[in-house]
């Protein structure tokens, strides 16, 4: 999946990160908080803030212990909460860490690591729900995220 957009949702006073697959056939909108949206936006725009932000620190910690981000995966959705995993290579072993999708995406972008979504999580959203959601968004709701 790729991060295709970052929107502000005025109805919920939250941010939405839009993941889409390479063929643009699948879409996964994930609601996230302001600071995670900032972190993702900075990474997307390749902006280096004056002082390291939380996810910059995370990446630096991983670098310092020679841990490599192999991939991140949005694995499941339960009660409107998405679950993700971060796969790390450390020494000769692979480790899987439970994470929120927002943190996983913020780290993946900094590590230039791929982001995946399982078929299971993609199918948990019916296309009907997505269409309804898309219909409710007005054109002015879409906008480039302002940092």
């Amino acid at each position, binding site marked *: 999946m790729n991060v295709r957009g970052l929107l502000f949702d005025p109805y919920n006073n939250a941010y939405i990160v839009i993941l889409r697959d390479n063929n643009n056939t699948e879409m996964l909108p994930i609601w996230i*908080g*302001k*600071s*995670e949206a900032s972190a993702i936006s900075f990474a997307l725009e390749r902006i280096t803030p004056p*002082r*390291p*932000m*939380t*996810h910059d*620190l*995370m990446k*630096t*910690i*991983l670098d*310092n*212990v*020679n*841990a490599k981000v192999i991939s991140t995966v949005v694995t499941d959705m339960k009660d409107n*909460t998405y*679950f993700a995993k*971060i796969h*790390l290579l*450390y020494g000769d072993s692979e*480790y899987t*860490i*439970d*994470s*929120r999708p927002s*943190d996983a995406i913020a780290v993946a972008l900094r590590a230039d690591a791929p982001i995946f979504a399982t078929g299971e999580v993609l199918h948990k959203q019916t296309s009907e729900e997505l269409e309804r959601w898309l219909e409710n968004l007005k054109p002015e709701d879409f906008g480039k995220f302002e940092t």
Partner: protein
Amino acid sequence: MMMEIQDPVPLTVHGVLIDPNTDTQIVILRDTKKTEVLPIWVGTSEGSSIRLALEEIIPPRPMSHDLMMDVAEHLGFSFTKVIVNEVKNNTYYSHLYLTYQGEERAIDCRPSDAIAIAVRAKIPIFVMPEVLERKGSQNLDSWLAKLDSNAFDQHKS
């Protein structure tokens, strides 16, 4: 004449105050003798993260700093200490120390992130004496007392 090298001063997190007018929170660090106060302004998410850790509240899903702790636990390295080492233009700088393969490494970071980790990892927080000296001569204790008397959210350590 030999220069006296001053030791870093150990601090504890006295509490986190919320400034209702701005989108900021204030972490209050105090030395063990309760003579020095170091207030550090932090963002909402960092302040919330510190408060959650102080109150030992485990959120339903791991927050960013919980994730860093999980990574350390899974991979088997540990955070050892935090030192607030500099202040420049009202911005505090700190180092988060970790031990990796027997070697200690210092990672440059914001004090807010360092403190959020320190509280979770139960590791000591220090400040360099010159940073304490530079924070100003105003009587912070009376300022703190004034804040204490208001209905600010705080945690007594």
